[in-house]
């Protein structure tokens, strides 16, 4: 008795509850279906309808509700209504595709997946690189036919996973630090989050503006810039934690260390991306100088922003 019942389980499950009620009607029930808790036997009229399909799915609609009675149950047995439901489902799917396609034009959601293709080893190595970049020698990125390969396989590629996680952690650590200073309220979390977000947006706009102004032929799209700006949150977290443990001195030491490390990291990372390559360039000396200025200003902006966004958490409001 076990094998036949388990074999027929997928088809039987949907009919089991109804045929229990219509079991006294047209067809015999081969096993006692104890899978449902509160079977309410439908009136005989409904039972007759449900009894017809023996095996396989009920053709009159996707999932006819089988538990309990509610006034709409007759609705699903009506072929017109079920057709309307199927049409509605198709329409919903089309709407979803339409939204996805249009969203793609503005936010590039499929490209975004590339930035989150990371694994633990990459995250560990990248964090180590952010803390101590001075011993790393090879900063170039391998390309796979014009697309950089996924961060999982290439440690020098930018990703958005670390910046997003670091941003959230920074908000939480800021909350903890403010809690130790007895000035934490839940609104502060929102305020800190929006402030940090606004400064990130300002920095992103400034970077993109300078890239456009200086007419640099860099293959840096805005998600890359967002990734590079987001790496500073790692340093900020460690500075806040050091300040928590060792008061002001620890905070400043950690800030100096991570500021220097991040500037070095940014300079080394942006150099292969922004500087014009010697092969397809015929003496753009102005271009090299401009891109060098850009890299240096971006690298110097990082410690300044790190200080600006953390000092008012450590030491109360400065303004």
């Amino acid at each position, binding site marked *: 008795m076990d094998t036949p019942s388990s074999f027929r389980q997928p088809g039987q499950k949907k009919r089991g509850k109804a045929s229990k009620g219509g079991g006294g009607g047209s067809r015999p029930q081969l096993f006692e279906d104890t899978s449902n808790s509160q079977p309410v036997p439908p009136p005989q009229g409904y039972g007759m309808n449900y009894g017809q399909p023996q095996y396989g799915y009920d053709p009159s609609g996707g999932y006819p509700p089988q538990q309990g009675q509610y006034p709409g149950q007759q609705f699903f047995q009506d072929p017109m209504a079920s057709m309307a439901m199927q049409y509605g489902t198709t329409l919903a799917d089309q709407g979803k595709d339409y939204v996805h396609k249009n969203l793609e034009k503005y936010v590039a959601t499929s490209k975004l997946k590339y930035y989150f293709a990371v694994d633990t080893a990459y995250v560990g190595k990248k964090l180590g690189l952010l803390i101590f970049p001075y011993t790393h020698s090879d900063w170039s990125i391998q390309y796979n036919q014009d697309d950089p390969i996924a961060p999982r396989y290439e440690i020098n590629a930018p990703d958005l996973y670390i910046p997003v996680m670091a941003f959230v952690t920074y908000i939480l650590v800021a909350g903890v630090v403010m809690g130790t200073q007895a000035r934490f309220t839940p609104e502060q979390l929102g*305020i800190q989050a*929006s*402030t940090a*977000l*606004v*400064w990130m*947006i*300002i920095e992103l706009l400034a970077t993109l503006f300078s890239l*456009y*102004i*200086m*007419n640099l032929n860099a293959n840096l799209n805005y998600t890359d810039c967002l990734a590079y700006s987001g790496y500073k949150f790692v340093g900020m977290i460690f500075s806040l934690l050091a300040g928590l443990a060792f008061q002001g001195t620890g905070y400043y030491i950690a800030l100096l260390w991570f500021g220097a490390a991040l500037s070095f990291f940014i300079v080394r990372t942006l150099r292969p991306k922004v500087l014009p390559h010697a092969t397809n360039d015929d003496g*753009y000396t*102005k*271009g090299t100088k*401009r891109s060098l200025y850009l890299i240096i200003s971006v690298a110097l902006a990082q410690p300044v922003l790190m200080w600006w966004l953390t000092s008012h958490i450590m030491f109360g409001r400065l*303004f």
Partner: protein
Amino acid sequence: MAFGLYSLLEAAILCLNAICILHEERFLAKIGWGTSQAGFGEDPGVKAQILHLVRSIRTVMRIPLIGINVAVIALKLVFG
């Protein structure tokens, strides 16, 4: 500073307004920032890029800014 996203939006609208009200003949030509002075070289240079950006912002954002300004003024009148 305790910024919010709304202050960023306000600042952006104000900056765009500032860029859009620079008049081509009366002002920009006088200080040498007119479009006749900006050439189209292979290497446009920083000044030419900035002027190009100013002109594009003016062309694109003039009409939408009218609507946005009206909306912001109405909101500020109602909600303060």
